[in-house]
């Protein structure tokens, strides 16, 4: 591997890692904090992409301007999903919730299929399409932006969960529902907010990705497995862990891609995942055994 290839791969890996991170941050909130294994996360992201897509196509709104729009829309949808369905199974065993979210995924995806048709769609944003060139190295603008937004979301959410009263209430509700009720937390409402937030972050991920890849109703599948891996790698519920985990996966995938032939780079990320878990069973930040 030449030095150029190494460094360029590193750059690409970090940027792609930022994308995995932002996906994982939303999931770690829902999965790690609420204990819901949310298969529908990818589908929610997909909806976020469509919001941005339609805003751009129909109204010419820049993807970064429609970002709040998709976040709010998905926040509402997330809260409704929590209220309509998940609320009823919060006490059920994990595997039930898992299947429910699987069902939700099918519903969302196929509704999108019916409404939007299965066509692949993409947008071309003039000011984003030029890459930043530094000598021989290139940096994709939308990915760079996604990287920084992802990092900011991670830090904000970390602060929010650790320091704010609402954040503590979210963790408390996840930890002990009865306890939460007894200190006056409206745990139902907290759960709407939490799931809504998770969905909103998925939407942000989607909006950020809209200028990068083509969208279709089943695009969520591309990310969901890797996102789960990142979340576990970072430690369940650990927002900063999810961010770093995303970077690790992104970088190792890119470097392995440069080093090996075939699609063995996919192999590498899973092997790294298994190895990290063996040595740090609670994720990279979870404290080793």
């Amino acid at each position, binding site marked *: 591997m030449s030095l150029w290839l190494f460094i360029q791969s590193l750059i690409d890996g970090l940027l792609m890692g930022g994308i995995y991170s932002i996906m994982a941050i939303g999931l770690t909130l829902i999965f790690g904090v609420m204990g819901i294994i949310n298969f529908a996360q990818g589908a929610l992201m997909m909806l976020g992409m469509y919001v941005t897509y339609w805003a751009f196509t129909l109204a010419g709104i820049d993807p970064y301007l429609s970002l709040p729009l998709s976040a709010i829309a998905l926040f509402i949808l997330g809260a409704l999903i929590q209220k309509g369905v998940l609320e009823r199974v919060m006490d059920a065993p994990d595997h039930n919730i898992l299947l429910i979210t699987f069902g939700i995924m099918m519903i969302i995806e196929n509704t999108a299929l019916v409404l939007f048709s299965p066509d692949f769609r993409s947008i071309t944003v003039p000011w984003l399409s030029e890459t930043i060139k530094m000598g021989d190295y290139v940096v994709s603008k939308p990915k760079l932006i996604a990287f920084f937004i992802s990092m900011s979301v991670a830090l904000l959410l970390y602060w929010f969960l650790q320091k704010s009263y609402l954040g503590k209430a979210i963790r408390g509700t996840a930890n*002990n529902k009865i306890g*939460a009720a007894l200190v006056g*937390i*409206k745990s139902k409402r907290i759960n709407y907010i939490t799931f809504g937030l998770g969905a909103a972050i998925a939407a942000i991920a989607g909006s950020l990705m809209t200028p990068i890849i083509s969208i279709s109703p089943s695009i969520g599948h591309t990310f969901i497995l890797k996102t789960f891996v990142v979340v576990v790698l970072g430690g369940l519920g650990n927002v900063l862990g999810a961010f770093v985990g995303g970077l690790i996966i992104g970088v190792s995938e890119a470097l392995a891609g440069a080093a090996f032939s075939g699609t063995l780079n996919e192999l590498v990320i899973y092997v790294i995942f298994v190895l990290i878990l063996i040595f740090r069973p609670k994720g990279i930040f979870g404290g080793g055994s």
Partner: protein
Amino acid sequence: MLKVENLQSGYGQIQVLRDVSLEVKEGEIVSLLGANGAGKTTTLRTISGLIKAWSGTVKFNDVLITNEPPDFIVRRGLIQVPEGRQLFTDMTVLENLELGAYTPSARKNLKKNLEYCFELFPILKERIKQPVGTMSGGQQQMVAIARGLMSEPKLLILDEPSIGLSPLLTEQVFDTIKEISKTGISILLVEQNVEQALSFSDRGYVLENGSIVLEGTSDELLANEDLRKAYLGM
């Protein structure tokens, strides 16, 4: 202050409470006694809105709170230190106490109340950063009581607060209860430490198989032969 009338409730299909009526007046300490499985905890859970009442009413400060959600009840100042503690075990001592003061009114006095709790249980101050789940049983019980106090209760319900506490601490907790009561907070207490509990309660109720079978002032109850036989082992 608290008035429970003809309360019936239970779990799933199984009825536990049958026509429970009891009352706590302003500033009183009232003990609820009864054997294992008599339905004491169930009564308290129903009052706090953790389980549904099948029939009957609960009034708190003349507001009907039957089957209101727990947070509604908590916001009105009816606070429970529950059986099994129900702590946020993954969170630190400090975070548990902060969440104790979750209601807006309690949040205002957070600092002051925190100091009060640390005075009461100095060990908690030393361990503010310890995840509660790793604490000893007794220490957890302290956190549970402290969390209850953080909520600024008007009526404090304690479900066996002395569980797991050393005799010395039990003594202290009972002293604290008396002290709290002096500040005008009413207390509804479930205790197996019957003799001690009655020694500082104003009145008491005895629950058996989900029904109140006896009630009276503490002195009356302590003098009752049946009660002494059934609960004091003499």
